[in-house]
C-alpha cells in the first residue's frame, strides 16, 4: 500500500492557500538569500476534539483547529525561526525574512531539487474525528461509566475522556526533502475514585494509537480500560506504606518501560551529546548495560502512538539500536545535530507544532525480550519491590539521575508477590541502572498508547515497552525507613 500522503498534505495545506511548489522555492530562496546553510518550511493543519464524561454524563466537549507554517534558517550551529498562523504567501515570505536574520556570515546553501521517498505507510491517512458519530461517542463514554460502576460498589466517581487529533503536515527543505504526512491519533482514558470508610484512592487506565475510534470497540479494549482502572484503584485501597531504601526491583512488562525512556533514551538524544551535556556523552562503544539488554527506538511500528511515517524534517523513521547487548551503539538524531556530529539523521527530528523548532526526540523506545519466564524472575527475589504500573518520570540529563513514580506496586517476600504498597518514586542513575539488570523476561509488551514526552516545553506522543526486568538495586522512595 502506498497512499500518496504528500498529495493529500498538498491538497489540505497548499491548495486552499493557492500555494504551489514554485512558492515554496521562492520562500526557501528568500531564506537562503542571506548566507544561510539551509532551511525548511513546515506547514501544519491540526484538528482536534475531546469529549469528557463525569457524573455519568457527557457534559463538556471541545473542538479545536490549529494551522500555520514555521520557517527555519540554519547556519552552522545557529538557527533562526519564525512562523505565521496564516498560510498565505505574504505571511510565508515575512516569516522567511525574519528567520534568515540569524545569519551574519558563512554559509552558501544551495536549493536542491525536490525528492520525496514513497514507502509503505504505517497508518491510514484517516480523519479519526469522523470515524464515529457524536451520538456513538457519547454512548461509548456512558457505557464505560456503567462498566466501571458495575465492577464494585465502592466506585464513587468515574471520569472518562475521549480525544482525537488529525495532524496533516508538509515539510519542504532546501536540501530537497519534500514530504507530507497525515497523522491520526486517538486516546481514551478512564479515571475512577473508590472509597472505603475514610480512605479514598484513584485508578487510571487507557490507551490509544494512530487508528480510528473503532479500535477502542475491538476486543473490548474500552471496557477493559474501565475494568482495569477499577482494579488498580481497589488494589490501592489495601496498599500499605511503601518501603524506603535500595533494594531489588522487578518491573512489570509494558508501560514500566518508562524506565528506558528516562534513564537511557533522553540521555542519547543527539543535541545533548553534540553539546557534551549528557551523562552518556562520548561513551559510544562503551558498556552501559548488562549483556542481557538491547534497547531500540523504533518509529516504524504500525499504528503505534509514537510512530511516524516521516519525522518533522521529512526524514523517514527507522529502528535505531541504542544499546546492543549492553554496549552503547547510537544516538537519536535530527538533521542539525546529525550534520554537526557528522552522522546520518535517524528520523527523530520532531516538533510539537509549526510554532516550535524540531529537536531530537524519541518515538517508541523499548527493550528486547530475554529468556526468563516472569514467574521465574519473581521467584528469584527474596525481598524486593514488584512495580507494575507507573505515572510519570523525569531525568537530569547531565548528572544522569532519573525518577519514575509507581502507581501500582507490591512487596516481594521470599519469592512471592505479597502485599500492595502505596505509590513511590524510584530513583537511579541512567548510565548505571541497566548494568544492574540480572534477568530479562520473555514477555515483551509495548504500552497501551498513553505516553506524552515533554522536552524544552514541547510535548510529543511517544511509546515505551519492555519485558519483565529484574534490577538488582534501585532506590525506592517510600516512607518506611
Amino acid at each position, binding site marked *: 500500500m502506498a497512499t500518496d500522503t504528500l498529495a493529500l498534505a498538498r491538497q489540505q495545506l497548499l491548495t486552499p492557500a493557492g500555494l504551489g511548489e514554485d512558492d515554496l522555492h521562492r520562500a526557501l530562496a528568500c531564506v537562503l538569500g542571506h548566507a544561510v546553510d539551509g532551511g525548511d518550511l513546515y506547514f501544519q493543519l491540526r484538528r482536534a476534539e475531546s469529549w469528557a464524561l*463525569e457524573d455519568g454524563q*457527557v*457534559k*463538556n*466537549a*471541545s*473542538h*479545536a*483547529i*490549529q494551522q*500555520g507554517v514555521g520557517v527555519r534558517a540554519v547556519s552552522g*550551529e*545557529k*538557527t533562526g*525561526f519564525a*512562523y505565521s*498562523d496564516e498560510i498565505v504567501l505574504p505571511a510565508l515570505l515575512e516569516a522567511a525574512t*525574519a*528567520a534568515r*536574520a*540569524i545569519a*551574519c556570515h558563512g554559509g552558501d546553501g544551495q536549493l536542491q531539487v525536490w525528492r520525496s521517498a514513497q514507502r509503505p505507510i504505517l497508518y491510514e491517512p484517516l480523519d479519526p474525528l469522523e470515524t464515529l458519530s*457524536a451520538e456513538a461517542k*457519547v454512548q461509548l463514554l456512558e457505557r464505560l461509566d456503567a462498566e466501571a460502576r458495575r465492577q464494585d460498589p465502592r466506585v*464513587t*466517581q468515574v*471520569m472518562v475522556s475521549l480525544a482525537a487529533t488529525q495532524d496533516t503536515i508538509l515539510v519542504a527543505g532546501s536540501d530537497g526533502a519534500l514530504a507530507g504526512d497525515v497523522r491520526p491519533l486517538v486516546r481514551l482514558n478512564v479515571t475512577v*475514585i473508590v472509597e472505603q470508610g475514610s480512605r*479514598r*484512592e*484513584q485508578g487510571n487506565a487507557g490507551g490509544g494509537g494512530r487508528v480510528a475510534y473503532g479500535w477502542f470497540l475491538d476486543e473490548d479494549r474500552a471496557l477493559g480500560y474501565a475494568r482495569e482502572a477499577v482494579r488498580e484503584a481497589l488494589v490501592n485501597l489495601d496498599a500499605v506504606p*511503601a518501603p*524506603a*531504601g*535500595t533494594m531489588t526491583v522487578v518491573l512489570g512488562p509494558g508501560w514500566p518501560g518508562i524506565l528506558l525512556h528516562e534513564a537511557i533514551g533522553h540521555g542519547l538524544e543527539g543535541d545533548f551529546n553534540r*553539546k557534551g*551535556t549528557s551523562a552518556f556523552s562520548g561513551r559510544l562503544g562503551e558498556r552501559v548495560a548488562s549483556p542481557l539488554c538491547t534497547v531500540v527506538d523504533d518509529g516504524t511500528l504500525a499504528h503505534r502512538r509514537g510512530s511516524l511515517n516521516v519525522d518533522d524534517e521529512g526524514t523517514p523513521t527507522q529502528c535505531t539500536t541504542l544499546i546492543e547487548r549492553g554496549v552503547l551503539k547510537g544516538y537519536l538524531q535530527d538533521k542539525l545535530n546529525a550534520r554537526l556530529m557528522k552522522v546520518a539523521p535517524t528520523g527523530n527530528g520532531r516538533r510539537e507544532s509549526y*510554532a516550535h523548532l524540531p529537536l531530537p526526540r524519541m518515538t517508541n523506545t523499548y527493550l528486547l525480550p530475554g529468556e526468563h519466564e516472569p514467574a521465574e524472575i519473581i521467584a528469584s527475589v527474596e525481598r524486593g519491590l514488584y512495580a507494575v504500573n507507573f*505515572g510519570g*518520570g*523525569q*531525568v537530569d540529563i*547531565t*548528572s544522569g*539521575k*532519573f*525518577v*519514575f*513514580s509507581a502507581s501500582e506496586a507490591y512487596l516481594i517476600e521470599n519469592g512471592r508477590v505479597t502485599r500492595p504498597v*502505596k*505509590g*513511590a*518514586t524510584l*530513583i*537511579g542513575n541512567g548510565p548505571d541502572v541497566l548494568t544492574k539488570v540480572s534477568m530479562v523476561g520473555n514477555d515483551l509488551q509495548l504500552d497501551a498508547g498513553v505516553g506524552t514526552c515533554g522536552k524544552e516545553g514541547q510535548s510529543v506522543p511517544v511509546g515505551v515497552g519492555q519485558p519483565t526486568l529484574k534490577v538488582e538495586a534501585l*532506590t525506592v*522512595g*517510600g*516512607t518506611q*525507613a
Partner: protein
Amino acid sequence: MSDTITPTTAPLPAQEQLETLVADILAEARAQGATSAEAAVSFGSALSVTVRLGEVETLEHHRQRGLAVTIYFGQSRGSASTADWRPEAIRASVQSACAIARHTAADPCAGLADPDRLARAIPDLDLYHPWPLTAEEAIELARECEAAALGLDPRIRNSEGGSVASHAGVMVYGNSHGFCGGYSTTRHSLSCSVIAQDESGMQSNHWYTVARNGNDLETPVVVGQKAARRALRRLGSRRLETRQVPVLFAPELARGLIGHFVAAIRGGALYRKASFLLDRLDTPVFPAFVTIRERPHWPRAMASAPFDSEGVATADRDLVSGGVLRGYVLDSYSARRLGMETTGNAGGTHNLIVEPGPLGREALLRQLDTGLWVTELLGHGVNPVTGDYSRGASGFWVEQGEVRFPVHEITIAGNLDAMFKSIVAVGNDVDARGGIRCGSLLVERMTVAGE
C-alpha cells in the same frame, strides 16, 4: 544588514480590534441559536534568543493568535477554538461548538458567571511594559549573562546557554451578559544554564529572572553568576543512607508545596472528591503561624489580573489565616457544584503570598540543625487524592546548622497533609518570581531514601 534590526516583538493589535471580534463571535452565536455564549480572543508576540558558548544558537520570533468560544443551548454547552480570525472561521467555530452542545447533557450548574459578580471597572494593574530591545541587544544581554557564568570559575566547563525572552500580549473576554473587558501584559525573562565539571562528574544548574518590566530584572551578570554558583555547589554530590530527618525546602521549591495545597482546594478536585483536603474549610490545615493571602491587584506582579477568565472581578482575600483554611479556589461551575459562590479563580489564583516569618536561610539552617536542605526536586510523585508525596531530590546534608556536603540520587517522602501540619518555620527569603510567593519552608520530618 537591515533586517537583523528587528524590534523585540511585533506591534500588538489595538484592544478595540479584539473587542470587535468578541462582539462578532457573540453575535454569530446568537444568530446560530445559542441562548448564551462567551468568547475570548488573544494575540501574543515574542522574541527569544539563546546564546551558547558565546555564539547565537537560536533566534525565534513568535506570534500567536487565539480565539475560543463556548456556547450554551439552555444548560448544554459546547466549546471550540481556532487561531483563525476570519469571519468564515468564526462561523465555523461557532458551528462546531453548537454541534457539540446538541449532544452534551444538560447540566444545571453550567453557564456564565452570575452577572452581579462580573467586573464593573477594570483597574490598570501596570502589567504592560514593552521592552524596546532589538534582536542584537537581546543577543548581547544573553551573551553577557552566559559570559558571567563561564567566567566565574574554571570548573564551569560547558553551557546550555544564556537566554533572553520578551513577550507582549493582549486579550479580551466577553459574554452575552454584556461583559466585555481586556488588558495587555508583558513578560520578560533572562535565564542561564551552565555545567560545572570536576573529577567527580558533571552537574548542571540554572537561574532565571522574570518581570513585567525589563528594568525590574536582575542584571545579566547576577543571573549568570547565580547559575554558575548553583552548578558549582552541586559538584561532589554523594548519596545518603535511608533515614528520617527534618527537611528545609528552598523557596523555589516551597512555592511548589503551596501549589500542591492550592490544587487540593480547587473546586474541580473538591466536587470530584479527588482531594486530600475534602471538607476541611474552617479547620486548621497549617500551623497557626501560617497565613496565605491572595492579592490579585498588585501592580506589575506576575499573576495579577483585574478579572478572571469568566469576567468575574478579582478581589483581595485570605486563603489561610491562623493556619485555618478560610476559602476554596472556585470558578462559577465548581462553586455551583459545591453550593457555594465563585471566588474569582476561573483560570487560577492571582498572586498568593505566604506571609514570611522572621528568619532568613542561615537562621533556618541553624533551626534545621541536622537534616536535609533540598534545593532540587525531580519527578511528579504526588498523589492528589491521598496527599502521598514521594519525589527525587538533591540538596545538601546539614549538621549542627552547617552545610557539610551536597547530596543527590535520593528521594524524600511523606504525606502532604501531615507535611503541611508539621511546618516548623516559614523563611523571609521569599522567591517573588511567580504567582506564589513563599520563603523557605522547614518541615519537621520526612523519610529520605538512599543507600
